[in-house]
Structure formats: C-alpha cells, structure tokens
C-alpha cells in the first residue's frame, strides 16, 4: 500500500512537471476554455441573462480540466506508443494501473491552470467579482473535482490502450461531455436522454460542488458523489486497464500505431 502510494505520488509530480513544461499542452488546454468562457459570456450578455458570468467562468474552467484530462490521458498513451515506451511500461514490475493513474491525475491537475485562467480572465475582461460564498468548501471541491476527472481519465486511458485511434476518441469526447454534464447549460434544460448519462459522470457532480461552494448552496452531497464516482472509476479503470493491456499483448497490438 505504501509503495503504491509512493509510486502514485512520485509519478504524479513527475507528470505534472512534464506536462507543465509542454507549452503546446498548456496553451491549447488553457486557450479553448478562455475562448469558450468569452463566447458564453458574450452570449449571456447579448441574451440579457443576468448574474451568470461567474457561473460561466467556473463552467469553462472545469471544461478546461476536462479538456486537459481528455487530451492528456488519450494523448499520453498514444505518445508512449509512438515513442516505443508503452511496451516498457506494460512490462515493468509495477502494476500497470499504478503507472497510468498518476498520469491521468496529473493531466487533470494541470487543468487547474484553465480554471485559474478563466477566473482571472473573467475578472479582468468582464469584471466578474471572485467572491466565494464558502471559500473553505471551494478549496475542497476543486481537488475533489480534479480527482474525479482524473479517475474518469483512467477509465478512458484504459480504452486507449486497446484502441489505436485514441486521439480520435479524445477529439470526439470533448463536446459530448461538455454538453451532457451541464458545465455551461443546466442539466435540467438538456434533452431527457442526457440527464441519466450526466448522473454517472463525475464532472456533473464536481461542477455542482464547485458552483455551490462558490455561488451558495450545499456542496457536500455533490462532493461526496464526485468522490464515490471517482472510487467506482478507480475500480473500473483498474479492471479494464489490466484486461485491455492483456488483450493488447495477446493480439500483439500494443505497439501498433
């Protein structure tokens, strides 16, 4: 247990540093949420909707965490594959999940840059006051959301091991999750089919927790749900990852690009 935690912590620090050094990664995952926040803010203004700018900034920021997780988790497996290091990771004595988990957590963590940048952008450009109703709970809600998204990234990463066109999946999933999880449009306004889907996605609850901590409300239930879903993702991701890696080895497709 201690070794697993140590490996996770060391891997997380390593990948956070590595991803932070990638200008392309940081700029692309930060820039889209800024554009989205600006677009949504102008739409809110033009539509005369009042009092939604902090709501928009927070939603776009969490979208940035999602983009970073998606792009990072999918891309990282693919980059390892291109560089020929995926086989080495799979063959390492440490459990595969313990090598991949820090990476997906790190990609979600780097997404915090997006949250910070959209909040600062909102304050500078749109004069959005950054007043938190429950600052302490906000400080708890953000890491919980990051953890939930990072663990969702683990489930995605497991499919990327088997699926050679992982970056296509990354490209495809950005807007569906943005749409379904109510990051910028309340889930209640979405089509009926979208609501049950939103319940099993941690970003829905993580976003609710962050919003209620920032704008008022009781975020504890949402926070607990985010962590519960995160635990489910960890179990699911571990099982899928080990099995998909075994399948990829059986079929000798691990290194195929």
């Amino acid at each position, binding site marked *: 247990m201690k070794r697993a935690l140590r490996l996770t912590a060391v891997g997380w620090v390593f990948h956070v540093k590595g991803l932070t050094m990638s200008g392309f990664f940081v700029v692309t995952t930060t820039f889209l949420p800024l554009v989205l926040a600006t677009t949504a803010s*102008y739409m809110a*203004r033009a539509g005369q909707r009042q009092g939604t700018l902090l709501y928009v900034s927070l939603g776009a920021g969490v979208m940035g965490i999602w983009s970073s997780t998606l792009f990072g988790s999918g891309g990282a497996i693919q980059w390892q594959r291109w560089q020929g290091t995926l086989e080495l990771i799979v063959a390492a004595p440490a459990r595969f999940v313990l090598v991949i988990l820090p990476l997906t957590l790190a990609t979600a963590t780097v997404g915090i840059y997006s949250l910070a940048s959209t909040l600062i952008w909102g304050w500078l450009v749109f004069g959005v006051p950054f007043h938190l109703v429950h600052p302490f709970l906000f400080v708890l809600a953000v890491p919980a959301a990051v953890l939930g998204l990072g663990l969702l990234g683990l489930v995605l990463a497991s499919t990327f091991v088997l699926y050679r066109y992982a*970056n296509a*999946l990354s*490209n495809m999933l950005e807007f569906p999750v943005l*749409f379904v999880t109510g990051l910028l449009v309340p889930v209640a306004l979405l089509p009926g089919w979208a609501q049950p889907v939103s319940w099993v996605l941690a970003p829905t609850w993580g976003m609710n927790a962050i919003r209620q901590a920032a704008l008022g409300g009781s975020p504890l239930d949402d926070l607990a749900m985010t962590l519960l879903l995160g635990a489910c993702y960890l179990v699911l991701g571990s099982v899928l990852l080990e099995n998909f890696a075994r399948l990829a080895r059986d079929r000798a497709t691990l290194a195929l690009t």
Partner: protein
Amino acid sequence: MTTMRLVFVGGGISYRALFNWIHPAMYVPTMLLGPIFQILFFVYLGRYNGLQSDSFFVVGNAVQMSGMAGVFASTMSIANERQFGTLAPLLATPAARLPIFVGRMLPVAANGLVVSAFGFCIGSLLLGFRPPLSSIPALALVVVVSVFSCTAFGFTLGSFGMRARDVFLISNLAYYVMWLFCGVNVPLSALPGWMATIGRGLPFTHGIAAARALAVGASLGSVSGQVLKELAIGSVYLIVAFGLFRAFEVEGRRRASLETY
C-alpha cells in the same frame, strides 16, 4: 495537360500520402461525431441565454465545422511535407508551384464541404432546421465559397510550417479565434468593435452571415455583397499563402533550412 495532372493526380496522391493515417475509425469520431455535439451544445446554450433561434446556431456551427479541415488539414498539407521529410524532394522537382499548391487545396476543401453538409443534415434531423428548398442551391454556393476562404486561410498558416518549428500551436489558436471572432455563436453586433473588425477580415464571417440570411428565405442577390466579400477575403489569403510558400521556399534553399527545425 501537365498542369491538370499536377493539380488532380498530384494533389490526390499527396493527400493520400499525407493523410494515410486517416482511417474511418479516426475520421468519423473526429470530423463527424464530435461536431454533432458542438452544434447541440451551442443550440442549447443559445436557448438557455434566450439568444437567437436554433437556426442561427445550426448555420453558424455547420459552416464553421468545415474549419477543422480548412485549418488543420491545410496546415498539415504543407507542414507535414517538412515533418515527413518529403518537402525537399518535392521542391527539387521542376514542377510549377501553383498547381502543386492548388492540388493540395482541393481535397482539403472537398473534405470541408462534406463535413459542413453533414452538419446541416444533423441540424435538420435533430433540431428541425428547415431552410426553404429554393434557398438550398444558394446556401450550397455560400458554403463552397466559405470553405474555399477558410482553406486558403489554412494554407496561409500552413505556409509558416515551412519555417516555424511548431505551426500546429498557431493553427490551434487560429481555429479557436475564428470560433469567437467570426460570429459563429455570437452576433458580430454583440462583440466589441475591435473584435468585430478583426472578424470581418477572417474567413467565415461574411459567409455565415449570408448563409443565415438565405436560411430564412433571403435571395442570393440580396446577400451577394457578403458572398463577394467572403470570396475576396479567400482570394487575398490564397495570394498571401502562395506568396509565403514561395518566399519560404527561396529562403529555405538559401539558408539550407528546409528540413531543419
């Protein structure tokens, strides 16, 4: 005859070679499935904000969807020649540069048209987008002009790929800037003046405005000014793109930097 062969045969072969990694399993999720949710997302965001009709967002996003091909594929059409190590052999050939250039544009533009048409079909199937039947040929013409304009813009960015180390960062940023500045989801009148001014110099802005007018029954004649502006903007980008391509070729030969990063 040689020119036609360079444009169509050469362009087709180069597209197949440069985009040999595009498999249906890659193409369908990236170019078709993802953008469906882009349209749905902005339609619902528009409804939530009480801004414009569904048709406004369907048209804006269906036209803009072609930008993924127009910007990224265009950039790759030039930058990847350098990355794959084929740029120097290509430029060592005596072939005229303009047909080489145009040959690379056509498949990219055709791809953009397919994606945009798919976006309109999805808008029709899922969101009840129903333009008057009589306006569909004009709408198709406007989409063709917009896709041309965006492809020319993409080639302008791609030409920097003959010199710059990481042109994909530029194309990513440009793609998202167009999203915001070109009136795709926010009416130009709702943007600050400087943003609207920049937007008017970018591809899509006039095309989207014309397409929106056609979708509610305007005649082609009444939007001809917008269509001509879009065409003119595309032509200017094409000239700039080709000029940059030639300039970077000459510079690359002089400094022996065609293949260095």
